[in-house]
């Protein structure tokens, strides 16, 4: 029988092209970080720079403390945010998954409704700054993204109600286990796949978050790595469009292009390194979300 596949050379060729298009900008970025500043200025960004140089990374080592500060802060908010977010969303999802929970429908709808309507940026911003005073505190980087997406809660809820047999919970209850104990001794250990997936999504969204820092943080001590990068790119824009007003000293304080690219490389390294390990969970999470959406 004739093979039921398209010509494999053709398919491979298409995917090699797509893969190249996907990673090309990253390669350009990484190459630029290993290029001498003068070479970038004279001959532009290139895949095969004329001169290989570690200057950018040496510079980073020298200004280690400020970059490490932002890096460390990003790690802290990612870990704290992910753990807190995971705890709160699973604790919210579990009772909603129990058929016997009173007011279960109403409470589920309260979660669902947050997906349909939101007050938008202005009321949220004013509430957080005028009433909760989180501006320029570390909470500004953690709180607004805690339950990024009510959708995750619904996802965990449906996992609990379809994958954890009610009989197990029931028998544990009859044996006299307290609800909370049932939750963390039985339900959570049985739900590792979904916990890993949601934790991963939360972790990535915290690591990549620059929006909260942009609107709530002006103090550079509280810049995450993304905000540091964001600030640098804005400064360059500002200098390019207002070159006549900017003093030479100000212009000098801006890191060179290769240094900026090196910081960007540092910013994506954790994701690149962890990616092969979490890819399986990630794909699973995406498909789960789509099917149940």
């Amino acid at each position, binding site marked *: 029988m004739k093979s039921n596949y398209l010509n494999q050379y053709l398919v491979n060729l298409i995917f090699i092209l797509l*893969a190249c298009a996907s990673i090309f900008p990253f390669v*350009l970025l990484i190459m630029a970080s290993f290029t001498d500043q003068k070479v970038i200025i004279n001959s532009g*960004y*290139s895949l095969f720079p004329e001169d290989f140089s570690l200057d950018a990374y040496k510079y980073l080592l020298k200004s280690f403390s400020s970059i490490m500060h932002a890096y460390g802060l990003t790690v802290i908010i990612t870990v704290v945010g992910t753990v807190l977010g995971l705890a709160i969303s699973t*604790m919210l999802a579990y009772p909603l998954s129990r058929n016997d929970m009173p007011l279960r429908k109403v409470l589920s709808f309260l979660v669902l409704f947050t997906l349909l309507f939101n007050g938008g940026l202005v009321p949220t911003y004013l509430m957080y700054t005028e009433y909760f005073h989180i501006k320029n505190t570390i909470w500004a980087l953690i709180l607004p993204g805690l*339950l990024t997406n009510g959708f995750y809660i619904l996802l965990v809820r449906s996992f609990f109600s379809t994958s954890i047999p009610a009989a197990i919970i029931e028998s544990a209850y009859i044996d006299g286990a307290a*609800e909370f104990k049932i939750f963390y001794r039985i339900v959570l250990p049985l739900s590792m796949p979904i916990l890993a997936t949601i934790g991963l999504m939360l972790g990535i969204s915290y690591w990549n978050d620059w929006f909260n820092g942009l609107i709530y943080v002006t103090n550079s001590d509280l810049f995450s790595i993304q905000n540091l990068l*964001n600030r640098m790119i*804005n400064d360059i824009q500002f200098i390019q469009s207002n070159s006549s007003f900017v003093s030479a000293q100000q212009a000098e304080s801006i890191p060179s292009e290769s240094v900026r690219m090196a910081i960007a490389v540092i910013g994506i390294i954790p994701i690149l390194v962890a990616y092969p390990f979490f890819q399986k969970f990630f794909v699973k999470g995406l*498909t789960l979300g789509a099917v149940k959406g």
Partner: protein
Amino acid sequence: MNTKIEVLQQRVPVFKKAGKVNQAWKTIKRYRALLLMILPGMIYLIINNYLPMFGVVIAFKDINYRKGIFGSEWTGLKNFEFLFKTSDAWVITRNTILYNGFFILINLALAVAVAILLNEMRNRFLSRFYQSVILLPYLISMVIVAYLGLAMLNVENGFLNRHILPLLGLDPISWYTEPKYWPFILTIVNVWKQVGYLCIIFLAAIVGIDNEYYEAAMLDGANKWQQIRKITIPLLTPIITIMAILSIGRIFYSDFGLFYQVPLNSGILQPTTDVIDTYVYRSLITLGDVGMSSAAGFYQSVVGLVLVLISNLIIRRKSPDQALF
């Protein structure tokens, strides 16, 4: 499932008129642990999501920080009058709908095509490898994407101006000051970032198609192209429709990062890069114009809600399982 309901219902006494309070108290006591568990999440949702919903009344007020949000004077529709008197309202609405509408079309088409091709890969290892590579852009923050964009588009030393345009015999282009190129640039960036993610969803649907259809088609002598057209695509249509309707429901909301970071927040580019989200952000944070930004935000929330409700209604008619409510 049924056993669970039955067993547990026996424990929950049915409410009777007499002693209703007593019974409610018993229920609370029985479920106090579960109620306690949902407390942090519910408090969070009330603060983070529900309070700002009531806060949309700001759009009808003249905010005075000393009097507080709820103490400020009502101004009726004045903020909206200001907003809709300017040409801004029209420009941002047009940009938002055209961009997002076009993104929906092109993303869905490309994602389905890539998913079908991925499924054609005989080598499972390579297939997974390609899938991982094209998903990579999805995992990167928009700030980094802005850096990647700058490396490509920088006027003096960007890759395009230095290497590609000279190759084609073209003059360098000042990308960041020419609004006319941005619809293309933003579309390309959006496709680059999103298609890898969307195609995973469609791939899962394709893998789920029963192989018997294809075997039967092959026995009847259908070639690959016919199989794709007559089996794969028709069987994918429900999920494509759902994804399209869901996206149309959110057409009033843009990817803020894409429109803010990638054009480097450049004022010159605003005619073709400004969308409702960037407008609200700029009016609030840069210009400090609470009235204008809250009016635009209210406009977005309300039209957005109506669109979500309509799209959900359509989905509920077509396939009730996929409906949100």
